[in-house]
């Protein structure tokens, strides 16, 4: 008969559950969260009307926590494939710092908390959009599309595109054309951004059997699709100006950095070094810069009173 001491039980528990605060923070995908938060800020600031600063900050907190919850639930479900890929194998769940169950409980708690706080302290429209965004990312993208189709990040990109609409709804309690145009821009931006990554991580995705476009259709087809979507996103980027809610600064930024984005996509299309894919790595960075720049231009115009939209009143 084996006698299990209290100390042994405690150590067994420690082996199973040795997660630090840092591990839980990593589950939130902080870098993704920062971009989501930034686009949410733009939607909120562009919205007409008046909102108290505390309400605005609460809405942004809920958007950030909702994004983090989505990341945690994604890491819980994808722990098996994360363990196979060099880019993701050091995440807390594949490293064994916490179990998939821990990550699920953490993510679900944050998701419910963020939606509830948004509903109670901001408004129901923003809460409903946040709930839809989290559900779409977890159930549609992570659990359904990611392992089944090379269109995974095209359709799944909707979840990452919605934060400007949530920010807008937090102020107005409804939706309108401007936030939906911003959603379309991010939606079209997502494929070239992630396909650039998948070009230089193609072996990783193949090892994990994730059907990203380079794995399923080949790198040549991926390069063509990157150029197509880059042209589409830059073209759609002119819409805010022609629809009247962006000014000349935005137009100049979209034209200049959009041109750089397209040129870089064409360089990826002509890439010969298919091992290290230096142009795709560069495109990944340029794509982030493009999105940041055009959204920052909207913010600057609004702050400077150059926008045609009524300024947001912060109490």
């Amino acid at each position, binding site marked *: 008969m084996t006698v299990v001491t209290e*100390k042994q039980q*405690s*150590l067994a*528990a*420690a*082996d199973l559950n*040795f*997660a*630090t*605060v840092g591990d*839980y923070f990593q589950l939130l995908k902080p870098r993704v969260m920062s971009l989501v938060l930034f686009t949410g800020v733009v939607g909120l600031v562009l919205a007409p009307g008046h909102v*108290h600063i*505390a*309400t605005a900050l*609460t809405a942004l*907190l809920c958007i950030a926590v909702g994004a983090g919850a989505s990341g945690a639930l994604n890491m819980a479900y994808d722990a098996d494939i994360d363990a196979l890929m060099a880019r993701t194998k050091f995440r807390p769940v594949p490293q064994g710092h916490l179990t998939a169950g821990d990550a699920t409980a953490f993510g679900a708690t944050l998701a419910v908390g963020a939606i509830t*706080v948004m509903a109670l*302290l901001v408004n129901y429209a923003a809460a409903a959009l946040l709930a839809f965004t989290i559900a779409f990312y977890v159930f549609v993208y992570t659990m359904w599309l990611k392992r089944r189709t090379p269109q995974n990040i095209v359709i799944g990109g909707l979840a990452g595109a919605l934060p400007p609409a949530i920010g807008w709804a937090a102020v107005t309690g409804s939706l309108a054309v401007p936030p939906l145009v911003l959603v379309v821009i991010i939606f079209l931006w997502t494929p070239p951004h992630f396909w650039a990554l998948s070009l230089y991580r193609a072996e990783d995705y193949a090892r994990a059997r994730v059907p990203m476009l380079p794995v399923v259709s080949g790198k040549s087809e991926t390069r063509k699709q990157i150029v197509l979507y880059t042209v589409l996103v830059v073209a759609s980027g002119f819409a805010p100006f022609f629809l009247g809610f962006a000014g000349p600064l935005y137009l100049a930024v979209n034209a200049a950095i959009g041109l750089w984005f397209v040129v870089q996509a064409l360089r990826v299309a002509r890439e010969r070094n298919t091992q290290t894919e230096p142009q795709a790595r560069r495109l990944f960075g340029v794509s982030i810069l493009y999105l940041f720049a055009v959204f920052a231009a909207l913010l600057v115009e609004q702050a400077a009173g150059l926008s045609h939209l009524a300024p947001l009143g912060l*109490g």
Partner: protein
Amino acid sequence: MNGDDEARARFERARRMRNYAIAGVLLFLVVLFFIMTMVRLGGHVAD
């Protein structure tokens, strides 16, 4: 200090830090709900 003691110390430190983090989040929520209640009541507290 042997290996088991070190592992136990690390585990207890991690657990303590997690508890502080949870307490911090709960305290933050209390403050947030208080502030938002004041914001929503606005100047009508005495009505």
